């Protein structure tokens, strides 16, 4: 499966971003402040449909705030957000169009943890208006693919971090959304679960859907995404196809450090020249 997914992404590599089609997400002049702190400082974003998109940035860059506003969970102070051509913050009709088309896996928000994994999916699916038999079928398949069948009758409160992320992902995919928003989906997840999640996401994008996920792990973004947006201090520093953003830098990590202006910090290591577990020449005064 992953192989097919990679074939699919490389096919799309050639086409210009968002050309001809409605972008998955269009953000114009988005602004949000909490008290004195400006979390999101007037950003503009165009995320093309059908891509695996990474929103990268250091902790506190405003990634979660941005994703929350795009998905309708947090009201922006200013700005306009269109998801698949529909305004997220306009009239109820348009909001309904958006909510039916997106799936979310937020970070730091609970699930209904006193339900079992199976019950949580049944509840989510019926809340989405899917027929019962269809929910059961999709839930069984998702549980199977995500390796949760053995724990499907266990309460989510007793799940590990990786299992929670996986059941959250299953709940977000159940209604087959066009755009999937994942906030730090690999945070605290073991390698086996991470690989499972990765496989499901790659299969999902290979069929033309869009994944937008936030992360501060550059290697992960570099290996998964074909399109990145770099965020720092509430602003977008760069956005575009991965190769374009990386430019001449050897890795996305290096390009990122340059973009956020953190390259100079490496010199700070000089002031710790005594460090080295006593093996170095200056073992420190006794």
């Amino acid at each position, binding site marked *: 499966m992953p192989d097919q997914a990679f074939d699919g992404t490389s096919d799309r590599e050639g086409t210009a971003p968002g050309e001809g089609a409605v972008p998955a997400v269009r953000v114009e002049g988005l602004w949000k402040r909490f008290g004195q702190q400006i979390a999101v400082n007037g950003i503009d974003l165009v995320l093309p449909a059908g891509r695996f998109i990474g929103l990268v940035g250091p902790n506190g860059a405003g990634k979660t705030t941005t994703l929350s506003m795009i*998905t309708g969970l*947090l*009201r922006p102070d200013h700005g306009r957000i269109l998801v698949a051509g529909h305004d997220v913050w306009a009239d*109820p009709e348009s909001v309904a169009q958006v909510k039916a088309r997106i799936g979310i896996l937020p970070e730091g*928000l609970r699930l209904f943890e006193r*339900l*079992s994994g199976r019950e949580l999916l*049944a*509840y989510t699916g*019926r809340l989405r208006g899917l027929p019962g038999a269809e929910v059961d079928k999709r839930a069984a398949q998702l549980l199977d693919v995500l390796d949760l069948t053995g724990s499907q009758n266990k309460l989510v409160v007793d799940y590990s971090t990786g299992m929670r992320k996986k059941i959250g992902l299953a709940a977000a995919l159940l209604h087959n959304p066009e755009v999937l928003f994942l906030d730090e989906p690999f945070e605290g997840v073991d390698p086996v679960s991470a690989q499972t999640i990765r496989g499901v996401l790659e299969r999902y994008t290979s069929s033309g859907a869009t994944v937008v996920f936030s992360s501060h792990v550059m290697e992960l973004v570099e290996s998964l995404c074909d399109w990145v947006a770099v965020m720092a201090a509430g602003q977008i520093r760069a956005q575009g196809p991965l190769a374009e953003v990386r430019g001449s830098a050897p890795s996305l990590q290096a390009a990122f450090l340059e973009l956020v202006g953190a390259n100079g910090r490496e010199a700070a290591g000089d002031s710790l020249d005594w460090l080295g577990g006593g093996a170095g020449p200056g073992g420190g005064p006794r």
Partner: protein
Amino acid sequence: MSADTTAPAPSLTSVFVRLKLSLLRNGLRQSGGRTAAYVSSIVFGALFAAGTVLAFVLLRGHAPAATVAVLVTGALALSWAVMPLFVPTGDETLDPSRLVMLPLRPRPLVRALLVASLVGVGPVLTFVLTLGAALSLAHGAAGTVVAVLGVPLATVTCVALSRSVAAANIRLLTSRKGRDLALLSGLVIAIGMQLVNFGAQRLGRAGGLDSLEPAASVVGWLPPAAAIGAVDSASRGDHAVAAARLLLTAAALAALVHWWRRSLVRLMVEPDGSTIGAASDAKADGRSGTGLLARILPGGRTGAVMERSLRYVWRDPKTKAAWVTSLAIGLIVPLFNAFQGGGSIYFACFASGMLGMLMYNQFGQDTSAFWMVAQTIATPADAYAELRARALALLSVTVPYTVFVTVVTAAVLGDWTKLPEGLGLAFGLLGAMVGTGAVTSARFPYSVPQDSGYKNVVPGQAGLAWISIFGGMITAAVLSSPLIAATIYLHVSDQRSLLWLLLPAGPLHGALLVLAGLKLAAPRTARRLPEILASVSKG
């Protein structure tokens, strides 16, 4: 270190006692407010102990002295037994799982732990109370001798009981299920206070204490209250009975220590399998989406939301505590008043008020998981379906329960003629509470802390919660005033033959209020989803 292997026990005991003393001292050294709370609780405890001892001394020589002394000791022992299950003590010297890595032998360890657990405010308070109980009973030399033996024996037995119960259940207490149990402690206190309140009222009346004598005669043979019973027996000259009761208590203490030691040994040498246990338990009660509940309930959003709400009543400790409190107090207040002859059918409305309160702060009960709901609401119609399903889940339990409480109250009062108006008023009030509950849920949502059995509001949102609850309750009272006015009018104008009209009028009025509340709340909910989510995510 001079401690050699031939006599390790005394040093171990002193280590534990010193550890306990430093913990107590550090408790006093904590910052401002906590020190004040600590000191005031000690002062309060001392005053309470002094008052009780004084009461016991005054009781000395009066007939019910033995009954009171024995029952107080029994209640004390009971509270020691259940305390570890509901109150996480934070007494780390007694948590055996912290000692697993140390090379300790069971016998000296149990001795050291027992002596260390005698140090503290609780054991001292227990000692003073049992001393008071013995003071009220001891007469003559024999009585004094038995008291001197019995009081320490009863105190040590109380402490050993608490420790052995805790040790036997420590795996449960440190697991998720144990933490859930601790969250129910608020509930135990709420219902216990009601029972104590009514018990005290009952006993306050003349001759009330006599009715407790049979209970006392049984409890007097149960350790550790048997030790206090022994003081009474000895004072009356029944030396054989006194000896038997003392021996019984001593035997119970020995058995408890043995049980404690066995639990400790098991804890120290066996691996912790609590998570495996929790998993298999959940498997046993977990059902798929096609359970009994799913088959009864309607399809679509209504069924899904009702099913989740009803499951949460049973599975979520905070929700369960709120429900059981409402159900129990809603029953206790009208029934106990009726039993005491001071009741009225109108007290049954208390039940509908308590139950209707469960509709308040619906989204706060979801915690930040409300995002899953918010994700599926776009139009006022969605919000209406969501709120209506929650109200239906609530009413599916509270409507039959209101009928039950009202009918039982009428039966106890023996006044069936008042049943129609009682039911009508109760339903009217229930409807008003559910209707206002829907509106306040949308307008004044607040976070419910999930980690405390006592707190139901996070710091900073208390004002919001007060507006929600009291504003809502006053509005509900005003909204149901037409029914109340009609009842009063029909009584005063002596048109009692028309009072049955309240039976259809009440539910109709209530249903209209529920509908109006839902209609009013739905557009507000749909409009304020991000604000509601932010407000309920602080817990």
